[in-house]
């Protein structure tokens, strides 16, 4: 499948990765080459083959509905680049 610069920009946007003009060009080249190569899969006859997401058929792995103590809040948020005593902080999400 041919991909375009627009595809690369769209995908970059979805990934929250900024690409400069030159970088977009370079990624277009490299991704095109890889995607072209991936296209050999289109030659495999997969008619009627179920996509296999989990390689082994283990099912129904569940745990009991049991409350265990939560973590100390400080320990959970102290790794954050910006935080208060209660929460991590981000730029305002509403105007």
């Amino acid at each position: 499948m041919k991909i375009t610069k627009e595809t690369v920009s769209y995908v970059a946007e979805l990934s929250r990765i900024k690409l400069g003009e030159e970088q977009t060009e370079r990624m277009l080249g490299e991704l095109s080459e890889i995607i072209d190569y991936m296209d050999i899969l289109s030659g495999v006859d997969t008619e009627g083959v179920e996509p296999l997401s989990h390689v082994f058929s283990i099912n129904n792995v569940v745990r009991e509905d049991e409350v265990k103590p939560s973590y100390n809040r400080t320990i959970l948020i102290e790794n954050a680049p910006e935080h208060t005593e209660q929460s991590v902080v981000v730029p305002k999400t509403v105007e």
Partner: protein
Amino acid sequence: MRDILKMTAIEVGEAIRKGEITSVEATSALLDAIEAADSEINAYITVCREAALEQAKKVQKLIESGELSGPLAGVPIAIKDNICTKGVKTSCASKILGDFKPPYDATVITRLEEAGMVVVGKLNMDEFAMGSTTETSFYGATKNPWDKNKVPGGSSGGAAAAVAAGEAFCALGSDTGGSIRQPASYCGVTGFKPTYGTVSRYGLIAYASSLDQIGPVARDVRDCAAIMDIIKGKDCMDGTSIELEEQNESYLQMLSGDVSKLRVALPKECFGEGVDDEVRSSVLLMAEELKKQGAEVTEISLPFIKYVIPTYYIMATAEASSNLSRFDGVKYGFRATEYDGLRDLYEATRSEGFGEEVKKRILLGTFVLSSGYYDAYYKKALQVKSIIKEQFDSIFEQYDVIICPTAPATAPTIGESLSDSLKMYLSDIFTVSPNIAGLPALSVPCGFDRSGMPIGAQIIGPRLGERNVLGAGYAYQQVTDFHKRNAAERSETK
């Protein structure tokens, strides 16, 4: 007394149990060796000198009081830096994780510590385990101890180089598409990727969740088996971990050295075009050796092999694009200093925090999942995966193990690979299939090329076929000494 640093992990454990040395002495000797060699090799990102010595002291007491008696009690071990260690920086060799210190241990770490092993430090790797050379690390490339101009392989390059350089007796790596086996092969050490689900992934920072497995890198198969005995088994924190039927059996004790009647398959596609002559002949010699010991060796065909690379890279990058989304400058790690609003915070942080190869794989993974392309790529890959799995299943109805090269060539020169991603991806051709199909696979040293670089052979088994895979490798190591050659000595004489 023998040089501690030349011992295998099991030998160190034995010496400690016999009271010939203490855990503290072994740990201390290793820490000194790291200090001496690592400025050159760069196998470690973090060395935990104080914590390790402290732990060794504690463990020594428990050994002396008889509370700890396992084969590896008191033995130091090093950990790939994508496995979470409580309170110890865990970076995935990425800028984006900054000085992240997880408030929890990975399950494997808990199990190692319960068995009395001493964690000495965190090992270098390709950023987020994405690479085959350990050159994409934010903390600089690791060198191959056999030739410091060469790469150690990747992504567990730090693990393989540390073991080869005498900077570790043994290590834990992770393997998504060959990340344990290929560096083990390039560095002349033994590395094992277990059956998917055998070892808990809880606390392993995911690259591709359906392919990732933690496994040992060590000097020989016995050490690998002993480490597996400690880390294997169902974990209620990992829903994909499996209950092992032979849970109470020890892989170490199952090693018999008897390969008579072992049905070995050699896929002709793995010995043809694109494989170095010396690699081919060394691996074939290994098959010969097993045959001498009574194994039945048969040539077979793996018709699907040309599809494994695209299948693997579609699956791996798709999952990675999702797994790596949580690194956004909000909860942990690095945050860009300049940004305007939330969206820009995400974009600036991720653009500055991820290296080129990681970004490329995130973009690729996002592409194969994006609307309009999902069916042609992601869904298709899962269908091909199903076919690959079935074909493996039918091969393993007739054979016990498959033997092939771990990599088509020996370690390349530093700087040679990164310029051509596709070529680098293609070099994973022999290692990715076991991950796609969830199968156990071992890499053992089986020779050297004319420039003296190690060659590795890969032994692949059916699901939960650990016994035969490790058994074949062990039998081979009983009669060969490639795994005993010493990189440090060779490197000096060169």
